[in-house]
């Protein structure tokens, strides 16, 4: 087991971990505001990726590489944001005020409808995704860094910083934080709680779509059931870093990405997902508020 190998695994882990962090945002913010795990998030991630895929394939013949990609990403971000908001209105809002397990089960149902509805429409086989940086690669200390990995890291970092600014510094961000703190009090203070809830779903879904596009390019494949595992990993990243926190989502994503890449390197790659689930069970057992949480609240 050489150092180059470990470094290589860590580099891949950081790139994929930043994508997990973007998925984790969707869980973290929704959990913060509505206190339930939105199992349908993985399905939104998949839908966003497919929107980007089909619009990119359509635009590619008409525009140069980068403008067509940018436009496709924009369409996917808008499309998945609308999709996320609609999902909340149709399937989650009617269950408000009931046990949050009802909402959770409803989100499991949404995830089935969307995932298998898509599989019915486009077929289960994976579709190849064109490369964004063909042949761009650098050597760092004996390990290879690809252009896609650098792109993923910096775009995700910029998005997370932008989101942190949005939540902490803008008016609507303040409303989101107030609603997270106490939804009843926010309602009494005159906040139309539907607005922060919808904005939260829109942001989470858009971030999910961006993560899906990154992972689609990284593994150069999209398929309808891609949202299952990716969604669960995003959730694991969110709870590892402490659910409800944006820096926590990033740290959790990085930790999960590096952990599973190293683990898969030492064992066999077949155990990659099993490592992630083991992380989930261990975090839940020993630090249910996340490993970076300052105080232990028994809010679970």
């Amino acid at each position, binding site marked *: 087991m050489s150092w180059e190998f470990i470094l290589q695994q860590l580099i891949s882990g950081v790139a994929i971990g930043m994508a997990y962090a973007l998925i984790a945002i969707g869980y973290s913010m929704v959990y913060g505001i509505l206190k339930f795990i939105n199992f349908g998030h993985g399905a939104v991630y998949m839908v966003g990726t497919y929107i980007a895929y089909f619009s990119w394939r359509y635009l590619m013949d008409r525009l140069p590489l980068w403008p067509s990609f940018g436009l496709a990403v924009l369409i996917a971000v808008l499309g998945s944001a609308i999709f996320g908001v609609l999902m909340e209105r149709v399937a989650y809002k009617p269950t408000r*005020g009931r046990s949050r397990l009802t909402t959770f089960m409803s989100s499991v149902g949404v995830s089935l409808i969307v995932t298998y509805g898509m599989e019915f429409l486009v077929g289960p086989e994976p579709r190849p995704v064109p490369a964004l940086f063909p042949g761009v690669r650098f050597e760092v200390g004996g390990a290879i860094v690809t252009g896609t990995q650098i792109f993923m890291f910096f775009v995700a970092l910029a998005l997370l910083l932008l989101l942190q600014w949005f939540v902490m510094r803008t008016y609507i961000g303040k409303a989101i934080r107030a609603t997270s703190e106490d939804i009843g009090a926010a309602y009494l203070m005159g906040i139309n709680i539907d607005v922060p809830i919808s904005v939260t779903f829109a942001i989470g879904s858009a971030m999910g779509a961006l993560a899906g596009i990154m992972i689609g390019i990284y593994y150069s494949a999209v398929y309808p059931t891609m949202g299952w595992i990716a969604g669960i990993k995003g959730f694991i990243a969110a709870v590892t870093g402490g659910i409800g926190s944006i820096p926590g989502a990033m740290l959790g994503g990085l930790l999960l990405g590096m952990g599973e890449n190293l683990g898969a390197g030492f064992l066999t790659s077949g155990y990659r997902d099993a490592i992630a689930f083991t992380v989930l069970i261990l975090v839940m057992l020993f630090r249910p508020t996340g490993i970076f949480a300052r105080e232990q609240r028994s809010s679970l």
Partner: protein
Amino acid sequence: MSKWIPRRVRLLTLAFIAALLLPLAVRSPFALHVLVLLGIWVVLSESLNFVTGFAGQLALGHAAFVTIGGYVGSLLMIHRGWSFWAAILLGGGSAFISGLVLGVMALRLRGDYLGMVTLGFGEIIRLLAVNLVSITRGPMGLPGIPRPVIFGYKFSGQLPYYYLILALIALTHISIERMLFSRFGRACLAIRDDEVAAEAMGVRSYTYKVLAFCISSGYAGLVGVFYASWATLFSPDSFKLDDSIMMSVMITLGGIGSLLGPIPGALGIGALPELLRPFTTGARIASLRLAGVGLVMVVFLILRPQGIAGMSTEKIYISLDPIRKLLIRRGDSEPGEGSP
């Protein structure tokens, strides 16, 4: 005399007698095959209903216990030459023990977190079954599982399996009903309705939750061995995440926490692929079925949370004013916490 027998019991006895006589009318092996499969779903959803419906603990990893039971039973029958009857007991026992291990760890968590951890456990078990090739033969599965022999009669065709699954349904239903009306069952119901109040009354909620969880897993293990012997093949894909979710849809449809609910729920959802067959073909049936199952789940949760047969404590709270609704869902003693 009949006055003292509850209506539920009379209904079930009639249904059971009808099921016993059904093979007189249904002779095609394919129809019997579908009936055995429906029977498997009935046992699985009844067992899941025990932990989710009565003890109020959301479990999304039930397929893992079927897989554990199935592999343990099959390996004993193939390599050690055990009889089916000994293997099914040990398969159930091993699922019970695994349920105990997971339950002791996971049942300190509440609600949807428990759901995610059990789901993760289910995936770990599936990945182990796929990757431990030297024991499980990986994705190829274990072929050639011997058929059961009883009093010198070797099972062949669908009919004996049909009666065996009927016996398993009867065993599951009667034992669950007896447990429900015991001290243990009442404790489970109390925990589901209000864990804090139950604790205050001296119910050791953690112990009872773990016990309910591993008993429920034990039934799943029995089904695993039955399935392995019936299909003569057991693979990591025999029971997976989709099937765990399917079982929770079955109990949602039937009415979570209702004694009879899992039966119509399992029959309805289990028969869905057969009902869809005229409209589409091939692999698309599987996609359409799962999407349809999701739709049933969402529609029922929103419009009829008590299911076909169930009664719900939730409907009392639905009519409350909006602010109170918001406050209730934030409070610690949420109404119906644990009974989705």
